[in-house]
């Protein structure tokens, strides 16, 4: 059987401006170019080359080929800027490829953003129809599925309220609900599940699973490896616009994580001296943070779950003092504190006086927070009160890894803990 979706040697080039930025060309410049072009043609080739240099050509995708069969659920993995979104935009016909062809043998609907085309002044009911139409649904289809959409979004009582009065949670629920009830043969979904509260995310993932089990072909971009592993049988990895892996989702995730950890580490040192957004009582005292992992390796792209994390805090002590402490707070992307490390908890804390440049290191043997981004707050206490504090001093990213040693990636909750399961003797079961 022929593949439902054939991607053949797709490349996409963007021309980004150097000195002259294409995007905001003014009419005058174009006229100027048009007028001066023949002059330059006469003057010779050199002038033409200068023109070329001014535009920075950038290949967002280079020679990507993938065949997708009907019923495949394919995850697309890659770092930011790897070309994932560009690929989806080409498949959705939002932008056209520079080279290559795509053959579609089924109706394709794409969901690149939740709530595209929602209008704040329109009511929930009106937006369902408008958004449905924008996503390619017929009026009769929307009418038929209207009640289902409303029930999924849980907005029954606010149907005739303009969505500008909705809470952001309601807004996202309604928007996803419309998209979730699209009925295409091929569904393309960008990282849209990263919004909304956890219970709704779970509901969305459940819906996605339902869609994929229904024999629908799905292409799914996510940074959530657990979701990819859960939903997709197959996954491709993009790196700098090129396809570098195509296989089972488990292998693809492994490949991706390995490729991350081999990348050279930059940015593991965060300078704090110049940070203006801080609360300093005397003077800015905190100078630097340094993040290290296993074997004192600098922490590069992210920290696989359960790995060792060592944070070196550099600061100045204005005078000789023994009563100083350092705190590190880890907040999740919703701004909730997940974990606080503080030197007052250290039982073997020395009572020695220090002065001037000091380094205080915090070591966490196994950092068991769930994958995601965490912001790090750092503060310095002198004699029990805060002397310098920086709220968003650094970000660290925890990556999926085979924490339990079973090849299963943890997908829910806030943290991972080592645990065991065993069956009791049959006699105990009665």
């Amino acid at each position: 059987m022929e593949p439902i979706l054939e991607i053949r040697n797709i490349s996409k080039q963007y021309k980004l401006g150097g000195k002259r930025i294409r995007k905001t060309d003014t009419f005058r410049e174009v006229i100027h170019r048009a007028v001066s072009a023949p002059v330059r043609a006469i003057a010779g080739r050199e002038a033409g080359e200068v023109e070329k240099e001014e535009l920075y050509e950038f290949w967002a995708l280079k020679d990507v080929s993938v065949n997708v069969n009907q019923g495949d659920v394919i995850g697309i993995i890659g770092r930011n800027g790897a070309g994932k979104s560009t690929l989806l935009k080409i498949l959705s016909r939002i932008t056209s490829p520079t080279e290559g062809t795509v053959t579609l043998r089924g109706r394709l609907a794409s969901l690149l953003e939740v709530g595209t085309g929602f209008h704040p002044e329109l009511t929930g009911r009106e937006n369902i129809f408008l958004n449905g139409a924008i996503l390619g649904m017929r009026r009769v289809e929307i009418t038929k599925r209207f009640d289902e959409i409303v029930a999924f979004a849980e907005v029954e009582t606010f149907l005739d309220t303009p969505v500008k009065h909705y809470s952001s949670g309601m807004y996202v629920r309604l928007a996803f609900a419309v998209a979730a009830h699209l009925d295409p043969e091929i569904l393309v979904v960008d990282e849209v599940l990263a919004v909304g509260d956890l219970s709704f995310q779970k509901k969305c993932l459940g819906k996605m699973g339902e869609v994929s089990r229904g024999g629908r072909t799905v292409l799914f971009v996510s940074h959530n490896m657990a979701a990819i592993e859960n939903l997709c049988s197959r996954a491709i990895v993009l790196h700098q616009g090129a396809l570098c892996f195509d296989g089972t989702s488990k292998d693809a995730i492994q490949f991706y994580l390995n490729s991350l950890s081999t990348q050279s580490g930059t940015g593991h040192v965060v300078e704090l001296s110049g940070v203006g957004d801080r609360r300093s009582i005397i003077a800015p005292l905190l100078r630097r943070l340094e993040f290290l992992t296993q074997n004192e390796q600098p922490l590069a792209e992210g920290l696989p779950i359960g790995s060792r994390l060592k944070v070196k805090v550099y600061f100045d002590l204005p005078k000789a003092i023994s009563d100083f402490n350092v705190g590190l707070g880890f907040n999740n992307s919703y701004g909730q504190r997940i974990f606080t490390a503080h030197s007052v908890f250290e039982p073997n804390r020395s009572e020695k006086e220090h002065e001037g440049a000091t380094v205080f290191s915090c070591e966490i043997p196994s950092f068991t927070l769930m994958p995601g981004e965490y912001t790090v707050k750092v503060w310095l206490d002198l004699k029990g009160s805060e002397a310098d504090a920086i709220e968003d001093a650094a970000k660290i990213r925890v990556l999926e890894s085979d924490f339990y040693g079973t090849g299963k990636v943890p997908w829910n909750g806030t943290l991972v803990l080592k645990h065991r399961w065993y069956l009791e003797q049959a006699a105990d079961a009665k």
Partner: protein
Amino acid sequence: MSTTFELTIKPRKGWQAIDFKEAYVYRELLAFLVWRDVKIRYRQTLLGGLWAILQPFIAMLIFSFIFNRLAHVQSDGPPYKLFAYAGLAPWTFFSTSVTQSSNSLIANHQLVSKVYFPRIFIPLGAIGALLVDLFLSLGLFGVMMLYYHWPLTLAVLWLPLFIVGAVLAAAGTGLILSALNVSFRDVKYAVPFMVQMGLFVTPVIYPAHYIPERWQFLLGLNPMAGVVIGFRHALLGSPASWEVIGVSLAMSLSLFILGLLIFRRMENRFADII
């Protein structure tokens, strides 16, 4: 699933044929976009839909005072107020359409960069919504005709032709300007000025015969001249040169086709540069 469905996505460069089939498939969306614009236009206004008729009406009062009373511009037969309004109704439609449609792609940039449908519906939807206003202002014109006891002639049967002419002229201009506006934000500043100039080169506030015989052919080059002359002929029975109207309507049609082609050629890059 339909086994016959097949679509190939290829690089697009240069001039393209217009895809009427696709536009037909998505026709419901055009209706939805028009409906959206009609719904939201006058939300949170006190006067609501009254604004649709208030604009040409107030313009008519002001122009009657300045041009008729002070400058002694005469109509070509009917009371000047009727005469001015019959010209201002299509002109207001045209100028508002051009202003709004030329800005429509920018205003809806999230639609352009996040979802696919025929982009042409964005400027056309804006114009469709304004067509509703045109019909409202024609309703007011009916009331004015009763007030002035001015009889309707059979020429009114021509009115649909001139409404189509107005839509073609507005759509052609709007398509070209909206596409240009994506790359060149200069359009935003040029449009209000162009629209203002347009009011004076089109016989809206003065009758067409004020223009000397040997320059009459120039009127034909203005796509809106035929529409305005035609509206007056259809609504008030004013004399009309069919030669001028014919050439001018042909200009509207050409402008529309040119607009379609230019838009089609440029839409390719919208998502990348908007």
